[in-house]
């Protein structure tokens, strides 16, 4: 209905040839035009407002007033057309506007009969707002007039932002009111007040040619030369303002709006405050928003967007059009400054901006090079509209409401002053791609609360008095979230164990391999040693060092120290001797407990050393009483001292009192309820505090402690075995280790687990999900805590199917957690701050370090305010934020923020973006300086598991999903500003870990540490496979056969991972230690040789000997070698043995077979040696496919069953018979194709440059360059291979097929090929059953490349029903 006829060209007389029609756009208009052109169907550039008229309106007269006004506003009566060829930009052309009723875009409706007239009108408006304008057609405005009640009307107008801004609306509304009033009074309206569009355009052009323009440019460039990364409330800094519809949301995001109201009293007090500091009330609002933003983002440097009317001293004052601009308004918010100072910054900043107001925001960004990076220069926009229209329509007063202020990149705070004295109307408009609705509401609520508190406070007080959250939020985070008080008896770590031993002495306390100890036995042994220790001086307050590997003796030693009343100091014998010596010197224990094996790795010491397995000591101990010794021990005495390294400085000993760890263990029992039939795995080294609960929790509650073998804590297979065989119900994993464990196939069989606890580092959601998939129904708990607060202070039960980061959860018993801003005020939910811990579990402090203790354990002001003075809180240095539900999210370290080339980079943010990628499991971002002066952002990532990849789409292979660093970078670049996209991405199989199982950042390999290309080629398929697996484990593109695993950045955990992969792939029994003895692919292949059987040229190539399934025999292609099938191993079950058959004639003295029949007979004998009777499984590619068919027929004729005949793109002899027999050049080409094309990166074809014949020399050189195993063949063998090729293709051409009785699983190389005449149907006469075809999207020579061969393996497994 609102379509208006438009004139394509103005009615002119004689055509004027040169001058283009209409006018160019102003810079302001151009910005909006381009924004729309990027997404033509988007309604995001619609602006709209609604005026409520309280009185009687004559709709006909109103339409007339509207039509007249539009007729006067030539800036409104345009359409905007794209530049024609040769023109510099879009142009605006005038359009004609029809009168009301004849096409004028005005919708009129009487809604008084509706049940809810206002709601109906609003719904209509909302729907209308989603209708995009067609800029090239126009008109670019639409009106509606609703009669919604007696003496109540709503006038709605929607205008495209390219032709209208907020001030323009006021001009139009004022004129309509004026004309309407005049018409109603029967008088002539005054002359048009409007200026002309042409004047606006001319002024804009003049400005751009002026010296002022240049001066303004220089000003802004200077002001923002440092290109600040601007914080936003969305927590994603400077997200590119993507064209709407391209921002991943789909659809058309119209800003999310929340409206609120600041009451008249508070508003009035803000005005008074403004006057008192000689500022305007908008200055106060800017300062308040800057303060809020700084607090909410933990930034001192914030930039607001300042929308400028842009009309002062300009003809634009009278033009209803698009003029407004946005300018950056920068604040420095330091804690010791005052609100008055902040207001002054706003005032001065706005004055400063106003002097350079005409320079466009987009041009500033362009000048600073931010456009290309997609970076914003401003955070939230604060749009203050100081005037109410105060219009009357023939005496009827009115109120104006903005409905849409145009597109919102991040967040816009629109503030309207209500002239009727009702205070301020405050709309929050947010980009729905960045903000949840509830989040916007919370920010708005807090901002209003902050305004109220500012209004009530002295503006000359330091800003520290103003916290970002509301009083209600403060109460919630301090009290409600910390409501953890539970009375516990004042016991020690050891007391409950002795009580348990006295009550049930016969119960099983400890299992270590074959050894089992009852509570009575364990207690007696510990008591004897305790009495001995007491005699040496171990007593309450004294320390005894324990350097014993995981063993019964270790448990006895720890209990004995505690029983004597002392505190134990664990020493990890794996640490450097110097560090151990430092620890002994620092802690000054009474004595050192160790064993014979460990003694040599300890530093020399003057202290008494007790060697627990020394027969003399054992004899001495036997003389002591086995009863519990007495000791004057209180809960305040230290129970253990554990050294932590910390990020800087020398290691420090954390002294933990009995009361702290007792609380931790009582909470755990209350939370998880171990029973006497529970069995807890002890695998954490004693130097890591998780071990404390592993050792003592089960013994305190009558459960059984199961010791993993020494060293087993890094061997997933060994752990899984122990868990299964010992019936372990409770185990702990550091998340990195959990991932390795879950990759271990036998982990899924650990179904006896009743709970798994994780702590020590961030638990990635994908790891938690992988856990739930592998061990469904087993509860997984995420815990967090520093050593300084008795192991753990938070806990969270993970539920399957949740998304977002896994929280660290809620506080444990008698523990308070505070998330504090830099002024140590509580942060409300959602706002990051530093985590502090207070309550029962705090350590006493650092041993002998009162300075450091005072620095990290500070006065708890919240306890003091609650009437409990003297309590302390521990400053963790960790960044966290509360969720609304009272769970905490861990965000990284407070020192995790770095500056790179002057830009602030929050590494956690980079890591979060990486981890959000579906192909990435975990990520770590660091700033490295691998070459002096070359600081760059580097990310290390591990690929998502096959399961996770399978969720995203069909996975081509088992094992880790392919992760292409270049593609990942490209995806990242769409999510992060350029300076936050890592310049190098390193894909790792697993992250290097410290002895405690935490990520070892220092050990991350440098991105340049890629293996040297070249070097010796592999000598056979096994070396080739090993080199590939090494590369995969290390995250390197290629590893040479003589490259050392540990030289390339491998560590023990990576080694565990690699060994597991080698075991599964090659079916060999390989101990973890083997990799340390033989750390290169070549040496490892040698080591395996005894197990790996014959050489690479033998008649049978055992690709995998192990497994209890029926063996699969694979028959070679023309070259006669079955090396190419090694890629099948990874796709088939580890239980599937695979044997490659190889051609006769490769070794000296062997003769070539004369017929295919003879060849097959040969292989029949080999097959029978390995598997005397059927059913048989056969597979062959190319010539091997023909041979497989032949062999299958022979087997059937011998009365055997053949359950699988798989033929990979081979065609019967009939189809080849007429083609010429290949010569040596063809054989060479075939050889090259097999070697080169089956490499993943073998993009280049095998053929030489046009016209150059292939020679043996060139082929050998090429093979060597490609790192192919074939290149290692000596000249004689290469000659033999070529003879085999020529012979094989000849045999194939002369063969006469017989009939195979059964089905054939056929694989077609489905990419178009030259030999289009080849057809699998040619097999029909030779097969009684079906030809079950599967197309593989590749060429014939590519069929054993990793992707295709994996598809083949999958199909074979599926066919056999053993997938």
């Amino acid at each position, binding site marked *: 209905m609102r379509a208006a006829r438009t004139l394509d060209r103005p009615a002119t007389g004689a055509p004027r040839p040169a001058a283009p029609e209409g006018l160019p756009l102003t810079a302001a208009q151009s910005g909006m035009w381009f924004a729309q052109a990027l997404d033509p169907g988007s309604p995001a550039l619609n602006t709209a407002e609604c005026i409520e008229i309280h009185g009687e309106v004559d709709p006909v007269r109103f339409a007339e007033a509207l039509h007249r006004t539009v007729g006067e506003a030539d800036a409104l009566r345009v359409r905007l057309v794209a530049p024609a060829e040769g023109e510099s930009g879009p142009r605006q052309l005038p359009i004609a506007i029809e009168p009301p009723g004849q096409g004028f875009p005005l919708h009129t409706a009487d809604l008084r009969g509706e049940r809810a007239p206002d709601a109906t009108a609003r719904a209509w408006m909302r729907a209308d707002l989603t209708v995009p304008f067609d800029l090239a057609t126009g008109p670019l405005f639409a009106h509606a007039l609703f009669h919604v009640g007696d003496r109540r009307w709503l006038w709605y107008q929607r205008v495209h932002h390219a032709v209208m801004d907020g001030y323009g609306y006021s001009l139009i509304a004022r004129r309509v009111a004026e004309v309407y009033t005049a018409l109603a009074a029967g008088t002539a309206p005054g002359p048009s007040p409007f200026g002309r569009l042409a004047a606006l355009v001319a002024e804009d052009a003049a400005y751009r040619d002026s010296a002022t323009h240049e001066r303004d440019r220089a000003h802004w460039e200077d002001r923002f030369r440092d290109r600040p990364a601007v914080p936003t409330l969305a927590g994603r800094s400077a997200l590119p303002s993507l064209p709407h519809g391209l921002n991943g949301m789909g659809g058309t995001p119209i800003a999310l709006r929340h409206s609120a109201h600041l009451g008249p009293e508070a508003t009035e007090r803000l005005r008074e405050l403004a006057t008192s500091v*000689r*500022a*305007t*009330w*908008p200055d106060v609002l800017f300062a308040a928003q800057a303060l809020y933003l700084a607090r909410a983002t933990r930034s001192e440097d914030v930039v607001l967007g300042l929308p400028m*009317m842009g*009309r*002062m*001293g*300009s*003809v634009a*004052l*009278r033009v209803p059009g698009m003029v407004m601009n946005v300018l950056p308004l920068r604040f420095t918010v330091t804690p010791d400054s005052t609100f008055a100072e902040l207001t002054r910054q706003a*005032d001065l900043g*706005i*004055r400063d901006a*106003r*002097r350079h*107001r005409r320079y466009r925001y987009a041009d500033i960004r362009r000048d600073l090079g931010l456009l290309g990076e997609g970076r914003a220069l401003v955070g939230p926009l604060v749009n203050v509209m*100081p*005037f109410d229209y105060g219009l009357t329509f023939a005496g009827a007063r009115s109120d104006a409401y903005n409905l849409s202020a145009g597109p919102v990149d991040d967040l816009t705070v629109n503030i309207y002053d209500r002239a009727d004295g009702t205070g301020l109307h405050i709309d929050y408009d947010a980009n729905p791609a960045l903000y949840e609705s509830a989040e916007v509401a919370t920010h708005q609520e807090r901002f209003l609360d902050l305004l109220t508190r500012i209004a009530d406070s002295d503006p000359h007080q330091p800003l520290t008095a103003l916290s970002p959250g509301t009083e209600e939020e403060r109460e919630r985070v301090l009290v409600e979230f910390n409501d953890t008080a539970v009375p516990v008896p004042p016991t020690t770590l050891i007391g409950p164990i002795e009580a348990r031993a006295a009550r049930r002495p016969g119960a099983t306390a400890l299992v270590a391999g074959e050894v089992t100890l009852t509570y009575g036995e364990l207690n007696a042994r510990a008591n004897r040693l305790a009495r001995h220790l007491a005699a040496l001086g171990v007593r309450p307050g004294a320390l005894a060092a324990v350097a014993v590997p995981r063993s019964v003796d270790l448990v006895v030693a720890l209990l004995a120290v505690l029983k004597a009343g002392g505190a134990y100091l664990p020493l990890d014998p794996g640490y450097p001797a110097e560090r151990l010596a430092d620890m002994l010197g620092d802690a000054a224990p009474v004595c050192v407990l160790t064993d014979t094996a460990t003694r040599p790795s300890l530093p020399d010491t003057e202290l008494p050393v007790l060697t627990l397995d020394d027969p003399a000591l054992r004899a001495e101990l036997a003389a002591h009483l086995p009863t519990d010794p007495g000791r004057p021990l209180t809960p305040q005495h230290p129970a253990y001292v554990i050294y932590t390294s910390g990020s800087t400085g020398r290691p420090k000993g954390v002294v933990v009192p009995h009361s702290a760890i007792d609380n931790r263990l009582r909470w755990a029992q209350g939370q998880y309820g171990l029973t006497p039939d529970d069995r807890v795995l002890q695998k954490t080294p004693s130097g890591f505090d998780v071990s404390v609960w592993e050792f003592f929790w089960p013994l305190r509650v009558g459960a059984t402690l199961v010791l993993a073998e020494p060293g087993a804590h890094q061997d997933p297979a060994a752990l899984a075995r122990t868990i299964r065989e010992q019936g372990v119900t409770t185990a702990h994993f550091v998340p990195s280790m959990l991932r390795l464990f879950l990759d271990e196939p036998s982990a899924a069989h650990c179904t006896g687990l009743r709970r798994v606890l994780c702590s020590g580092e961030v638990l990635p959601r994908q790891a938690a999900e992988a856990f739930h998939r592998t061990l469904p129904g087993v509860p997984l708990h995420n815990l967090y805590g520093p050593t300084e607060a008795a192991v753990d202070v938070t806990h969270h039960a993970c539920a399957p199917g949740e998304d977002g980061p896994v929280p660290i959860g809620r506080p444990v018993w008698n523990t308070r957690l505070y998330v504090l801003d830099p002024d140590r005020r509580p942060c409300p939910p959602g706002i990051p701050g530093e985590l502090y811990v207070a309550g029962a579990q705090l350590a006493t402090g650092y041993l002998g370090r009162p300075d450091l203790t005072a620095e990290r354990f500070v006065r708890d002001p919240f306890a003091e305010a609650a009437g409990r003075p003297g309590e302390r809180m521990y400053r963790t240095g960790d960044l966290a934020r509360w969720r609304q539900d009272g769970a905490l999210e861990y965000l990284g370290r407070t020192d995790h923020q770095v500056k790179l080339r002057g830009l602030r980079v929050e590494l956690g943010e980079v890591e979060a973006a990486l981890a959000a990628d579906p192909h990435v499991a975990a990520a770590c971002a660091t700033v490295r300086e691998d070459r002096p002066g070359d600081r760059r952002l580097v990310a290390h990532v591990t690929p998502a598991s096959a399961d996770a990849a399978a969720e995203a789409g069909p996975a081509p292979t088992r094992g880790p999903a392919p992760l292409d660093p270049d593609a990942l970078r490209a995806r990242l670049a769409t999510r992060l500003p350029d300076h936050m996209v890592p310049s190098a991405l390193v894909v790792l199989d697993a992250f290097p870990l410290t002895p405690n199982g935490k990520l070892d950042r220092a050990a991350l390999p440098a991105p340049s540490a890629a293996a040297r290309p070249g070097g010796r080629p592999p000598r056979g398929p096994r070396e080739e496979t090993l080199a590939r697996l090494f590369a995969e484990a290390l995250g390197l593109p290629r590893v040479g056969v003589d490259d050392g695993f540990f030289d390339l950045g491998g560590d023990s955990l990576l080694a565990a991972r690699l060994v597991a992969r080698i075991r599964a792939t090659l079916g060999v029994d390989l101990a973890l230690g083997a990799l340390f003895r033989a750390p290169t692919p070549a040496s490892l292949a040698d080591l395996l040789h005894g197990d790996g059987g014959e050489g690479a040229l033998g008649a049978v190539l055992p690709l995998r000997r192990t497994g209890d399934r029926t063996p699969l025999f694979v028959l070679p292609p023309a070259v006669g070698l079955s090396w190419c099938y090694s890629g099948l191993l990874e796709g088939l079950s580890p239980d599937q043995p695979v044997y490659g058959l190889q051609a006769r004639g490769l070794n000296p003295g062997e003769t070539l077979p004369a017929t295919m029949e003879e060849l097959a007979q040969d292989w029949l004998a080999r097959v029978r040696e390995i598997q005397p009777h059927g059913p048989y499984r056969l597979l062959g590619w190319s010539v091997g496919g023909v041979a497989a068919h032949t062999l299958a027929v022979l087997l059937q004729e011998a009365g055997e069953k053949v359950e699988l005949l798989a033929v990979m793109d081979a065609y019967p002899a009939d189809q080849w018979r007429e083609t010429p027999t290949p010569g040596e050049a063809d054989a060479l080409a075939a050889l090259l194709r097999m070697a080169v094309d089956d490499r993943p990166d073998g993009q280049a074809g095998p053929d030489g440059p046009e016209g150059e014949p292939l020679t043996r020399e060139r082929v050998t050189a090429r093979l060597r360059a490609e790192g192919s195993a074939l290149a290692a063949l000596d000249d004689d063998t290469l000659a033999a291979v070529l003879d085999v090729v020529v012979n094989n293709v000849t045999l194939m051409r002369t063969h006469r097929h017989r009939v195979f009785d059964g089905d054939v699983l056929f694989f077609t190389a489905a990419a178009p090929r030259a030999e289009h005449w080849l057809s699998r149907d040619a097999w029909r006469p030779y097969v009684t059953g079906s030809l079950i075809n599967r197309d593989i999207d590749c060429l014939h020579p590519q069929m054993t490349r990793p992707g295709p061969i994996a598809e083949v393996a999958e199909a074979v497994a599926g066919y056999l029903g053993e997938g």
Partner: protein
Amino acid sequence: MALTLDQIRADVADVLGEDPADIPDDENLVDYGLDSVRIMTLVERWRRDHGTEVTFVDLAEQPAIEQWAPLLGVRA
């Protein structure tokens, strides 16, 4: 009470938080920090105290004291 040039200058200096001596008659007051809120303050103040009839647009269009004087009935 009739408005004078000195009074105009004093009122402008007041809303800008400046010394009247620093406010020139012939320069664009926007460069001195004049904005729409302050112009409205002046419009209201002069209407209340001196009965003038100028509008926001009148003052904002040419924001300099010498341009305002005739609009406010003051001889420059």
